[in-house]
């Protein structure tokens, strides 16, 4: 077994962990973290695919690596938006201030 396969298998297991996090989370934050762990596993499998494709003087196939960079940024955007929604939802649920903007008091 080579190191590359090892990372591929680790990616598979990380994806499994992420699925568990998604399914067993108690709240939104846990699900968001589970999604990120799952995403990390998927990207790692792609990394193993890229490393296996080393050729033409490159240590790895650059196409999957570029795709993963795009993927990481998209995953960050998703995380940030989901967290912002979660925080705002808690504020609206907890705050006595009406959310239709008639009378707002800032902390």
């Amino acid at each position, binding site marked *: 077994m080579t190191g590359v396969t090892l*990372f591929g298998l680790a990616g598979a297991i990380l994806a499994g962990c992420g699925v*568990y996090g998604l399914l*067993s989370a108690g709240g939104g934050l846990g699900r968001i973290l589970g999604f*990120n762990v799952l995403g990390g*596993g998927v990207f790692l499998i792609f990394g193993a695919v890229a490393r296996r494709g080393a050729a033409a003087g490159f240590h790895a196939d650059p196409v999957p690596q570029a795709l993963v960079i795009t993927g990481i940024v998209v995953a960050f955007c998703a995380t940030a938006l989901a967290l912002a929604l979660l*925080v705002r939802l808690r504020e609206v649920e907890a705050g006595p201030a009406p959310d239709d903007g008639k009378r707002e008091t800032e902390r």
Partner: protein
Amino acid sequence: MSLLFDAALCLLLVAGALGVVTARGARRAVLAFIGYGLLLGLAWVRLDGLDVALTEIAIGSGISGVVLLRAVRAVPEAPRPGTRPLAALLSVGVAAALSVMVLALPEPAPTRAHDVAAALPATDLGNPVTGVLLVFRALDTLLEKVVLLLALVGVWALSRDPSWSGRPAPLSSEPASAPSAFLARVLAPVGLLVGLYLLWVGADAPGGAFQSGAVLAAMGLLLLMGGQIRPPRTSSPRLRLLLLAGPLGFLAVGFSGWATAGVFLGYPPGWEKPVIIAVEVAITISIAVTLCLIVLGPPSAEEGT
């Protein structure tokens, strides 16, 4: 020897992931996740993906970590229910099935490395990953800038009505503590230099717009935490120009490709590298500003304050 190191790293990764999804309490889970991101970055180094490693550590672990920590403060910790046997069973099934598929991948592995190697010299770039991101698959990169911008619009749209065009809440207490102000004053210039270096070197070596943008965003956050700068008003035209510089600058270069190279997103022959670096500068600025503002969250101060 290196196989041993890889195996240990993989075990740590799995332990980290398990730590994230089974942690008691949201804060612990987030801290475990930041560690998990750093380990993932190391794994990418071992997989010869230095560009990815930098991105993972800067964005996947670093800036994501800041956003997560800020969210943990605002969201009460939901109790994690005990172990779910069914979920665990399903997850083991997923991991096993994926493992089988990973082991069944074809040999020799298909690769695009030859195509990239053949086409890269024409672009005058030395870093194949930058070549793929900015030349061969530039459409993906361009639209991903729009995704980043949309995420910011989505975050801003969560503001309360009166604060729609106000400022995000400051990151620092008033006044900022002496050590964080010191750190901001000393580290920010160094970080700025590192960010610019990453951008410059990205054409030929690992680095590039994303990594540089993330480092610059981190420096911006440092300055905000140290109370050296104030969060900008979201309606400021200058700020909005900075946000648009990347996506629309890239788009403009894409359109000019019709005139100079006869094809959308083509680069003018002989001028590929300078134009590519100009595009990278524009998108780095937008990435840095957008990431910073996403971390700051929706505007909260009322207009006029």
